[in-house]
């Protein structure tokens, strides 16, 4: 089983990297973009012995305690059988 975890800065937190990328893209002529937020992506392979629910619990725990700093970041994830 594989988890794909996406971490990004909270909406309330200014993302200077995202802003810079946004302006660069605009300057290159990509006029149809409204905003860019930069984040992190983790691919986590879990033991196949875990049930779907156990795996989800484990991923959420890891994301909350290690992969994100809850003061500034939030996360989402998806599971798939790899």
């Amino acid at each position: 089983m594989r988890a794909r975890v996406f971490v990004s800065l909270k909406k309330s937190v200014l993302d200077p990297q995202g802003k810079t990328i946004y302006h660069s893209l605009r300057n290159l002529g990509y006029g149809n973009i409204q905003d860019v937020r930069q984040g992190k992506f983790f691919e986590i392979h879990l033991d196949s012995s875990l049930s779907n629910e156990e795996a989800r619990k484990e991923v959420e725990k890891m994301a909350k305690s290690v992969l994100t700093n809850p003061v500034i970041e939030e996360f989402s994830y998806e599971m798939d059988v790899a």
Partner: protein
Amino acid sequence: MKFGVLIFPGSNCEHDAYHMIGKVLHQPVQFIWHQSGDLGDCDAIIVPGGFSYGDYLRTGAIARFSPVMEAVKRFASKEGLVLGICNGFQILLESGLLPGAMLKNQGLKYVCRHVHIRVESTHTPFTAACRQGEVLNIPIGHMEGNFFVDPDTLYKMERNQQVIFRYCTPQGEITKEANPNGSLANIAGICNEQRNVLGMMPHPERASEALLGSEDGLMIFKSMVGSMVHS
């Protein structure tokens, strides 16, 4: 007063702190390895600057799981003095010993130069020897010093006078131009509610000898020693 200087894989300012405490401040000092769960008989702990664990994941994020940080938490809960400098400040934030978090510098560049900071409160063991509003000339060197905290927590911190240093002009004015990294409210250093844990981005150990261009950083260590004598 006996100082302990922590070492994590990737720390690189521990020798500067060790030298300054031993040779300039003339106080006993020892290194403490990150795997140690015991701080010995130290009266104060320095969490030094550098790039602990290569800054992987987030600055300070991995270091906080080191056995020594559990010992530091117990030490801090018993009113032990803990000073986190630069990456040490980031580790204290990730450990939850101080409120807030660090974002990348607003200019997205590593900033390495002397800055001026204003002492906002002398009511800490780290600033007791300073004058209220005194301007200190101390260098910074970091990529993630853009302090952030939610508005409610900032309000609480301001009310408790937990903001200890702010970036300022040489005359002591708090301006946008004097802020090197976009830090919220020009914050350069903060303490916890109990006032025995301080984190600061500037490096006082790099400004403790005339040879280095400034001795202003020494005030912080002298304050710590003085607090020990008086308590």
